[in-house]
């Protein structure tokens, strides 16, 4: 029996990266536990509950992969509410609290040996990064087939992880495409919403390929619809949901969708599972 007292472990912010221009204000935080064991065990797709001491707590998807060289916990945070605003004020050396990891994870077994497609919208790239960095890790790369990415952002200013993109682009058997909402001077990549670009820009095979998508709810819906139109099996389309949460353990009742608790049975669901669930997300 696992006892969870809802109290976090202390972690130190070791690095803060300003990802985007001030318009969206996304920062990436690198964290290490201060109690000796810097890392925790986790799986790609899981999330943690982060406490800003004296302010509150909120869930964040892990944006790092559990590979051997992973020394720090990484999350990317968009300034939105009380906790995220307080977090954005914090700096290197400040302390926060961490509970977790919680939730299920991306289906690694199902993905193993197959081609992988990642379609992201904005900060939806953050939770996918836990799998992207896993799949593209030199020690694990041979376990997966071809990798394609389509990353959507509002504007070039809003791009995430520009310091990682070169590495991803240069990984063997990998193509990375970028798109922004509106044309912009000097932009040499795609323009438009991701669901309109899937057919043209990605090679969408119906066999032996797993599709991962994450972004705003409306984008997830549009992308999954387009993939289904292209003949992709809903079981092969994987996404991860966001809900308000207090406990992360399937108790507090906030993240219910039908009998499922997104914090415990999710946050990762296939589109097939989403179709079986009441439409309440």
């Amino acid at each position: 029996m696992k006892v969870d007292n809802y109290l976090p472990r202390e972690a130190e912010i070791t690095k803060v990266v300003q990802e985007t221009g001030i318009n969206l204000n996304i920062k990436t935080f690198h964290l290490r536990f201060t109690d000796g064991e810097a890392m925790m065990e986790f799986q790609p797709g899981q999330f943690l509950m982060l406490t800003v001491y004296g302010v509150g707590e909120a869930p964040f998807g892990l944006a790092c992969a559990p590979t051997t060289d992973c020394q720090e916990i990484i999350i990317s945070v968009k300034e939105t509410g009380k906790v995220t605003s307080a977090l954005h004020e914090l700096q290197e050396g400040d302390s926060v609290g961490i509970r977790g990891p919680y939730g299920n994870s991306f289906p690694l077994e199902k993905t193993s040996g197959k081609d992988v497609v990642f379609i992201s919208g904005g900060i939806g790239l953050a939770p996918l990064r836990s799998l992207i960095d896993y799949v593209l890790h030199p020690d694990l790369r041979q376990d997966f087939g071809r990798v394609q990415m389509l990353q959507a952002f509002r504007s070039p200013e809003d791009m995430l992880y520009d310091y990682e993109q070169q590495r991803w682009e240069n990984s063997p058997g990998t193509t990375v495409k970028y798109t922004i909402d509106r044309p912009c001077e000097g932009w040499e990549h795609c323009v438009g919403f991701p669901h309109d670009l899937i057919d043209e820009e990605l090679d969408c095979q119906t066999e032996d390929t797993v599709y991962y998508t994450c972004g705003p709810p409306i984008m997830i819906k549009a992308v999954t619809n387009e993939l289904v139109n292209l003949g992709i099996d809903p079981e092969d389309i994987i996404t991860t949901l966001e809900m308000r949460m207090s406990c992360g353990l399937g108790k507090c009742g906030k993240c219910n969708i039908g009998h499922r608790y997104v914090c415990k049975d999710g946050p990762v669901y296939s589109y097939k599972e989403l179709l079986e669930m009441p439409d309440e997300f």
Partner: protein
Amino acid sequence: MIKKLTAQDLKELLGELRQKFLVIAPFRVKQGRLTKVLYQPVKTNDQLSSIYFKEQPDASPKEYFLPRDDRLAEETAGADCQPEEWSDNPRLFLGVRSCDIAGIELFDDVFIENDFVDPFYQRRRENSLIIGYSCQEPADNSFCQEVGIDPLENENVPLMLYDAGEGFYLKVQDQELLKGFEILDMLQELPEAESSELEEIVTENRKNFSGDEFSLELELPFPEKEAFTSVDWEEATASCLGCGVCTFYCPTCFCFKFFWEEIEKNRAWDSCMFSLFTAHASGHNPRERQDQRWRQRLLHKFSYHPTNYQGSPGCVGCGRCVSKCPVNLDIRKVLNRVEKTLAGEGVKGNES
């Protein structure tokens, strides 16, 4: 083993039990112009003669297990921090009716699971002994038998108290559960009663429970997606104010939130009746409308909880949500409507 007690015997037994236990029992308490029956700790032996069994208590004793607001610990105390000791004395809950016992059992299912234990709940629960109470007549608006609860007998508590008008019967049902509480010795002195005497009383009282007008026809769980989409929830729940009283009085509602007072992490009851319950920081809200929140409350109890817990209902039929609703929105009427709609869809229940 059945013991026969006069009112005086019961008082003396409780007086003795008070040396070991914090005894919590129902009392008539004045609140403004109203008199309510509330569970309260017994502070002096003089109070023992005022214990009041005749009516269903205003609220279940759930707040003694999951307090309305509860200090957990300093949020920097760490993941290994143990709950503080509240009291060295175990607690004895006297006169708990079958509906409220079932409420506590539901909490046990949720907070002491194989893959998860809530140490704050567990500490309070393990420190508590329950003496059940056999109802003599139905409480207002109650429908416990429709959710599989016997208001007269309850085998899930170690001791059960039966009101015989002139005195009481106390049935010892599970001596194992009483181990460590040293209560059996105290009972030795009391005269034994024949089980037939008690059966007679229960049979007589049971006659009062035959007139349930409300009935639940479908097996639980209600089929999730059909119930979610096919029922006209808006019309069925149009009068709801969203005050949340139903959930606070409900013996099975356990949803909660955390709140902070400087460095203290606290827990308080929360309610699915409130829009902020599910509102995201971004402004998105999966349950924007009150009828969507009502649907959540009803289906959590009659579909989602039974799905997650082997068909066990999430409602104990105590009727408090009906009695307490400021606009007389009656869950029985909504349930009838749901069943009618599902029957129209050709759904037999339990097949989702």
